[in-house]
């Protein structure tokens, strides 16, 4: 499933993997774009699978004319060996009924590659928030038990909020709680499977609605940066993230002058 390009790092052992869940507003994917684009991460491989709808285009992060001719596929892995960081970008929706298979494949790849920890960037429907969630920052996190031991204290220091569990049967039995991430795509499934397989996994998500989700992507990636310090943040100023060329015309072409 993972097919390397010619230049491959010797292994991903001990690396941090960041990946998006295809979720409401595509916020995880937009945030992932910002990370790859800002850090100038080279591509090291593809996730070649029948679980994703095929798509192709030219390099979404061109820095010069030569790059612009590099073909990009629907799921690619980028890497910066110096900082032990790998990023998986997913650019297409899942083929119907194949999301579970994809979860299994990704977790198997994570384990066999020896990633130290995995961070899933995701989002959830803002309209499903309860009264408590309407207050404060719309950002939430989840840690798998193995990672909780390592990173739990650090996230508490950052004053992050863990995602609240909801009643399985509201109004009838409020003690029976479960994890609920509406609009999160494979987030819940990936997290649950990751926990049962003992994988160090963190989920960072933001409550949002469909629309112009670029501000949500910036919020999520700044959230991540506060923890992982991927990009320097000058004091009193916001972090400078590089918007990729592929974000042009997100809402369609310009207005044709012929209509006036």
């Amino acid at each position, binding site marked *: 499933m993972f097919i390397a390009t010619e230049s491959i790092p010797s292994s991903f052992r001990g690396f941090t993997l960041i990946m998006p869940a295809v979720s409401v507003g595509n916020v995880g994917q937009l945030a992932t774009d910002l990370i790859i684009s800002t850090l100038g991460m080279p591509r090291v491989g593809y996730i070649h699978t029948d679980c994703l709808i*095929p798509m192709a285009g030219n390099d979404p992060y061109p820095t010069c004319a030569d790059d612009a001719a590099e*073909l990009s596929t629907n799921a690619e892995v980028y890497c910066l060996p110096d900082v032990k960081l790998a990023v998986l970008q997913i650019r297409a929706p899942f083929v119907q009924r194949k999301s579970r298979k994809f979860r299994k494949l990704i977790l198997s790849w994570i384990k066999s590659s020896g990633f130290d920890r995995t961070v899933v960037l995701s989002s959830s429907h803002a309209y499903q928030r309860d009264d408590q969630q309407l207050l404060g920052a719309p950002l939430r996190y989840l840690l798998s038990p193995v990672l909780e031991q390592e990173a739990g204290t650090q996230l508490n220091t950052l004053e992050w909020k863990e995602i609240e569990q909801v009643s399985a049967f509201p109004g009838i039995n409020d003690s029976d709680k479960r994890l609920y991430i509406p609009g999160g795509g494979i987030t819940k499934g990936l997290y649950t499977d990751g926990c049962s397989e003992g994988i160090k996994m963190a989920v960072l998500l933001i409550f949002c609605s469909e629309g112009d989700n670029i501000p949500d992507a910036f919020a999520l990636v700044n959230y991540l940066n506060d923890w992982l310090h991927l990009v320097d943040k000058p004091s009193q100023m916001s972090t400078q993230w590089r918007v990729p060329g592929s*974000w*042009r015309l997100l809402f369609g072409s310009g207005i044709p002058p012929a209509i006036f």
Partner: protein
Amino acid sequence: MQMATFFGEVLSVYSRAVEEDEEDDHENEEDQQIRSEIEEKRKVHVEWCSEVKNELATSAEKGLHCSDLVVAVGPNAAGFLSAYVLSSEIWSPVGSVSIWNERNPGSGAMLQSESSCVFYRQKDSPSVLICQCTCYIAEDQLFQWAESVFSCIEKRGLNVTVLSDCSLAEFKTTESMSSTSPFLRALKTGLYRSQISCPLLEQPNIVTGLAAAVVSHCQVHQIPAVLYQSYSDVITPDSVTMETYKPAFLNLSRLIKLDANPNADVLKKLIRISDPQSNMYT
């Protein structure tokens, strides 16, 4: 998700909003059996004529030796090949891809059909394989199509050219393109080194469907490939759109003879198919 338009017709639309995974655990045995039967029916099968089957059986690598594979996706791309290349009798059908889905309920391998996926080869120059694909291939069958077809062809020495139709409405640009329509744009894999006959596909435009599946397979498996996508504001086959593909054949001209003028009978037949059966204005 479906929505009703003002006139009451129901359309299926894609939403960016994402639902949680479907849980298969609640399916009973009968449902699972029906589901696996449908999955089996939806499998993509490549069928070859007996001559090609023999070649595959006797080849050491179990693959056809091809220098070039040309895949035409869509009525104008396929029509271009029919009118300018395949009308010559030197080409004969040698195989097909049989596909069953909700929009393609016809069964069985038909070597020639109005809506199908057929392979052609020249007897005297069997190293070039042409595939015309005019049938609908569902999203879950695209990857399979590419894997199944490429498993029959040896990768070594192979070059792939894809011709694909696309609506002008899909082209994102700040400029008005209707005056220049139809036009070509190209995508190429990392190993493709030949000259490209048109501008590269600009950001943020992408390619989907069978063309994307083929070119992605080539990129991942390091096969030199080029995709020429024709953007047109005409949704039915038309000779002007077909002509836009001519520059795409510049690199293939030594191997594939392109007729200077399209075969008029073939063209008439292709364009007549899209004539409206009745028109309330005439």
